[in-house]
């Protein structure tokens, strides 16, 4: 499939649904924290946090996690991967950490994110929320909350655009 | 028959005679023969240049004492491969060549190898310590005609004056050669003082140090009437001082090395220890002045300052590495490539600077031409156009060549010492 697979309205509805699902699964926001994976997961996490706050009337802590130092391909590329900011101004120990990312693909990013989280503390539980699951897992990783399942081939390019960074919300798939 | 050769169809370039013509040159029993001799071995020389064997005023053969760097055998073999039939061996050996016994030892060793004539240079001061005069008289009796403390500058005007004045006693005319650099001003310096040294974090040896030493030496030469020779000039100001001194009638001669004619301080940005030398290579302007000085005769001769060092000594940190480059094997090719072929220096002048002028300064009567009947057959045969890349291993024991990796155009094919081929087909014969 090629072209825009999610438009602005689709993204909004998906994030709203995910927010409800988190509240339902975790029975409210007690002990729940959101950690977006830099850099697109950061804005998505904050939008989910805002939505959750709107629904529950109480704030949920949000942080951003850069997983570059935990990647499994450091030293294999010609340029060291670019580093982003990590800002988690709360303790993750004992919490239900909901990781938020834009696209779930091979699962390696999530593996790195979990290792990073473990170095920051001992979460009680880790869950994963993604806007798009494009398949082709290379590790035994799965998402708890999915905006949309988008079957792709490996050669396809899946791009998530978000308002804060790209001026609009959309998910676009491009065939080679 | 042995000892009989003919160089057939050679372009004979004879700087002393001032001729450049194609002819056959016959050699019999060590001398230039008048005409054809029977059963002579033919050396085809069409398209090749035949010139007087080159004479080097300045080489360090390192024996006795530093045989790990070079020996008289390997050094004279390297000289022969470079087209030299005579070499002046500097006195900074161990023990220092400051008395006749060492002079004899060096000369006899060279004679035994028979690859190149060696003219030992005597030290000016005992042990090169720069304090008291060495036994120059005894060394003159042993045949020495050039004295130098090279390695070191003569430290004071007073000492140079005494040495030049004392030298008047000898019936034979001697020349005192000075490594002209003001010692304290260059102490600790690693390369030419300037913007490059500053950004490389290396202490500098300013050109003024040479200017000061040369000015001092020229004044003393004028004062005493003695014969002064200035080693390895490196700066424009020094050339200018020599030009004026000669115009004033001061008895001074000067030399320049191939590396000072080719490299500048900008070549040192790689911290290449093979380019570390004293005095250092300097700016473009200095290099141009040296070239002009060589062309107009202000600088009389090209000398190699062949300075071999062991491989590990040169693979050390830049500031710990001893200065100097080898040069006997590359001198002629370097001058041809960088000066003669581009038209900066005529071939005749180049050969004068590398053969007849140094022979005259050194008093090496049998060398430097002219190529005429009866004279000793000390000759070099050169292919002006043969290209080659300078890379180790060399004929010299050492590998520290500033020209490593460079492509040169011009190659010695044969060298003849008193009628015997020391080099044939570009290789040493023994």
């Amino acid at each position: 499939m090629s072209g825009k697979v999610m438009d602005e309205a689709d993204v909004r509805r998906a994030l709203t649904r995910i927010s409800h699902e988190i509240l339902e699964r975790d029975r409210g926001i007690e002990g729940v924290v959101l950690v977006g994976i830099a850099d697109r997961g950061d804005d998505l996490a904050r939008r989910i946090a805002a939505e959750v706050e709107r629904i529950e009337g109480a704030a949920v802590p949000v942080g951003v996690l850069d997983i570059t130092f935990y990647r499994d391909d450091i030293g294999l590329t010609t340029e060291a991967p670019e580093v982003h900011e990590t800002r988690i101004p709360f303790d993750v120990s004992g919490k239900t950490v909901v990781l938020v990312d834009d696209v779930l693909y091979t699962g390696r990013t999530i593996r790195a994110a979990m290792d990073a989280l473990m170095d920051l503390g001992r979460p009680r539980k880790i869950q994963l929320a993604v806007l798009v699951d494009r398949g082709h897992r290379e590790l035994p990783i799965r998402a708890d909350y999915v905006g949309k399942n988008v079957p792709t081939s490996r050669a396809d390019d899946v791009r998530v655009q978000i308002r804060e960074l790209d001026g609009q919300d959309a998910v676009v798939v491009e065939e080679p | 028959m042995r000892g009989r050769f003919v160089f057939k169809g050679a372009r004979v370039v004879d700087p002393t005679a001032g001729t450049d013509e194609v002819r056959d040159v016959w050699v019999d029993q060590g001398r230039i023969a008048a005409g054809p001799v029977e059963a002579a071995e033919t050396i085809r020389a069409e398209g090749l240049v035949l010139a007087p064997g080159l004479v080097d005023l300045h080489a360090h053969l390192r024996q006795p004492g530093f045989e790990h760097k070079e020996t008289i055998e390997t050094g004279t073999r390297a000289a022969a491969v470079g087209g030299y039939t005579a070499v002046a061996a500097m006195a900074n050996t161990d023990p220092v060549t400051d008395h006749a016994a060492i002079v004899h030892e060096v000369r006899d060793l060279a004679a035994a190898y028979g690859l190149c004539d060696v003219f030992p240079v005597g030290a000016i001061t005992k042990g090169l310590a720069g304090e008291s005069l060495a036994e120059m008289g005894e060394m003159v009796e042993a045949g020495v005609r050039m004295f130098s403390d090279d390695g070191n500058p003569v430290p004071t005007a007073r000492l140079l004056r005494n040495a030049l004045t004392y030298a008047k006693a000898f019936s034979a005319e001697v020349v005192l050669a000075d490594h002209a650099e003001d010692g304290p001003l260059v102490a600790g310096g690693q390369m030419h003082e300037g913007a490059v040294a500053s950004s490389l974090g290396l202490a500098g040896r300013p050109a003024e140090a040479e200017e000061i030493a040369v000015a001092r030496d020229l004044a003393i030469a004028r004062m005493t009437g003695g014969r002064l020779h200035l080693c390895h000039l490196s700066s424009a100001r020094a050339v200018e001082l020599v030009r004026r001194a000669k115009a004033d009638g001061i008895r001074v001669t000067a030399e320049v090395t191939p590396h000072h004619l080719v490299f500048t301080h900008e070549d040192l940005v790689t911290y290449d220890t093979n380019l570390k030398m004293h005095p250092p290579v300097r700016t473009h302007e200095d290099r141009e002045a040296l070239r002009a000085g060589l062309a107009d005769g202000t600088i009389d001769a090209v000398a190699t300052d062949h300075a071999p060092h062991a491989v590990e000594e040169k693979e050390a940190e830049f500031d710990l590495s001893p200065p100097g480059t080898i040069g006997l094997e590359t001198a002629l090719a370097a001058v041809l490539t960088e000066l003669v072929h581009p038209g900066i220096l005529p071939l005749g002048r180049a050969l004068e600077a590398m053969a007849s002028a140094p022979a005259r300064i050194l008093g090496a009567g049998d060398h430097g031409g002219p190529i005429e009947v009866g004279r000793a057959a000390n000759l070099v045969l050169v292919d002006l156009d043969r290209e080659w890349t300078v890379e180790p291993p060399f004929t010299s024991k050492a590998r520290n060549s500033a020209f490593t990796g460079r492509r040169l155009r011009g190659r010695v094919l044969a060298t003849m010492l008193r009628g015997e081929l020391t080099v044939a087909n570009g290789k040493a014969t023994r």
Partner: protein
Amino acid sequence: MNKHLLSMHDLTAEDVTRVLDTAASFREVGSRVIKKVPALRGRTVVNFFMENSTRTRISFELAAKRLSADVINFSAGGSSVSKGESLKDTALTLQAMGADAIVIRHSSSGSPLQLTRWVEGHVLNAGDGTHEHPTQGLLDLYTMREKLGRLEGLRVAIVGDVMHSRVARSLSFGLVKMGAEVTLVGPPTLIPPEAPEWGVHVGYDIDAVVPKLDVCYILRVQKERQRQEYFPSVREYARLFGLTRERAALLPEGSLVMHPGPMNRGIEIDSDVADLPTSVIEEQVTNGIAIRMALLYLLLGGSGEGEVA
């Protein structure tokens, strides 16, 4: 980025920004409980320190360990020549240790560049003779940027023995590259005559310069060696060029006082000036580890052949 970091000239302005941005992330790692990330796990970093410097060596050692690399400390007592071993032989020994990166601190200018001819790993210059000390320059740039929010247009004076200071060279080159305005101040005998070619101003009157500065960077007076040839006494030096309390009071509000350490309190800088809040000397140390982690990460993290996913 280049394979090696030998000199500030190895970095473009973009590279410098990248290093400083990456260092900011490593500062954050340094604030965690577990100050360690697995980024360089399994890599070997050799600290080849021919010159005594516990501070810099520890800084590099911590940087490498916090990246989960293995660290080998190799310090020879004297120069390779004094041990009868060539620099090349020492290099080959380091190579045989499987060093992915060699951090070299040496008293001979140019030795890091010489090393690159004989080893396959990345070479980082931790200070060579009087040539350069690029990691110090970068950590100083980081401190300035963090405190003052920018580098472009900053008015910085570097005061003291510039002639023999590798720190002054690296910092000057780095500041000029990032668009700052640099003035070198000190006794004329200790400022290289060619310095204006580096794109800097030169001054001999510290009192004229101090009131117009964003950063006053004080160099260590080297009391060792034959410095008597360059200036008559430390007393006169302190009077003419030392950052006294009186002079420090003339610094504009919000400007920084910096020093690469170790300080000669009372000579180039008064004790109470060094302890003022405007002095960021302590932070320079903390930033050093982050910068060195950033450099190790950027050099070793980009040593492969593939594309970043």
